[in-house]
């Protein structure tokens, strides 16, 4: 039987679907996986004073902060993504949000953006197995770009370890699934960026993850120009002609999510070439609502 377990975390609605021998066995495991998601949220949320993120950011420009193995590996992963994306994937770019007000529908002050840009720069971050140091006061690390997707994988790993027959983890749109029986995969619909009740494509997940990045809600529209909330760390502005939405299918959610984020920071045509070369199933919707990619039209 399949049990549905819903809760709120990571900034949105979350759902587990667990295949187990009985409802109460599934519930027991769902609770444990829920706890794991909350653990990661508590540890890495920049909104919580007791999170490692807040501690690191408060010490920026002053002293290094000691970190555990998991944090070190996340920083290491972010570093790999930074290199692989030619500097587009940058965990220190979060501070740029201070310049932008997407609710007001007005553009930021360019001066402000340029001053804030001096506080952005992953290349300056020093980290090692036991500690991390942000060199300038005002620099910030935002794990938001990795922790939600990592939490999908962590919850799934916990459920696998507990030997459930199959599970689907959906944390506010980032999804991972496994099934001991590949004959019955999970069917997922990828939301259309402008009409959420429509699916722009459907995907079958047996032992893989689907992550999506898109400016479904937050963007600024002035005249016929659209400004996505996904900001390029090199300019402080969204990339021109960036895609509207990208979805990627990968062996784990972390890689799916960061690849999607990277694609959202390129021109649509550059993104399409990069995704094609990456070699995993992808879907891209550009600002003219054209769909591209191996997942399109399924």
């Amino acid at each position: 039987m399949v049990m549905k377990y819903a809760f709120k975390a990571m900034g949105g609605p979350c759902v587990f679907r667990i295949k187990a021998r009985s409802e109460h066995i599934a519930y027991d495991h769902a609770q444990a996986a829920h706890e794991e998601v909350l653990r990661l949220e508590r540890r890495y949320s920049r909104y919580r004073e007791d999170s490692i993120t807040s501690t690191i950011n408060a010490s920026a420009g002053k002293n290094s902060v000691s970190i555990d193995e998991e944090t070190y590996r996340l920083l290491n992963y972010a570093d790999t993504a930074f290199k692989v994306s030619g500097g587009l994937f940058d965990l220190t770019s979060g501070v740029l949000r201070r310049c932008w007000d997407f609710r007001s529908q007005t553009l930021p002050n360019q001066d402000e953006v340029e001053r804030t840009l001096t506080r952005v720069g992953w290349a300056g971050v020093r980290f090692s197995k036991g500690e991390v140091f942000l060199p300038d006061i005002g620099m910030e690390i935002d794990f938001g770009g990795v922790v939600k997707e990592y939490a999908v994988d962590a919850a799934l790993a916990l459920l696998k370890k507990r030997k459930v027959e199959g599970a689907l983890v959906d944390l506010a749109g980032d999804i991972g699934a496994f099934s001991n029986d590949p004959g019955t995969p999970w069917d997922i619909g990828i939301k259309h960026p402008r009409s959420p009740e429509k699916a722009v494509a459907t995907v079958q997940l047996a032992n893989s993850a689907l992550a999506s990045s898109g400016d479904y809600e937050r963007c600024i529209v002035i005249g016929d120009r659209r400004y996505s909330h996904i900001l390029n760390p090199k300019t402080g502005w969204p990339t021109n002609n960036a895609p509207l939405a990208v979805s990627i299918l990968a062996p784990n959610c972390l890689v799916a999510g960061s690849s999607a984020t990277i694609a959202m920071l390129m021109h649509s045509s550059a993104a399409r070439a990069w995704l094609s070369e990456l070699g995993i199933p992808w879907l891209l919707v550009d600002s003219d609502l054209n769909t591209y990619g191996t997942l399109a039209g399924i």
Partner: protein
Amino acid sequence: MKNSLFVLSIIALTGCQTVEPWERGILAKEEMQWQASTMEARFRQQMFNSKEASSGTSGAAGGGCGCN
């Protein structure tokens, strides 16, 4: 008999394909385990041990019985 052992050793020597953790769903199925239903397997083995001169499968000998 000899052929299958030969094939098995060849597989061992040539090295095996990497199987990522997310690809192991099938291997977790009951029919892919070395010993499925413990009760039935245990008793069947005991029956064979008491009717034949040989004994032993996977695992050490275990307890005895007067099984005649």
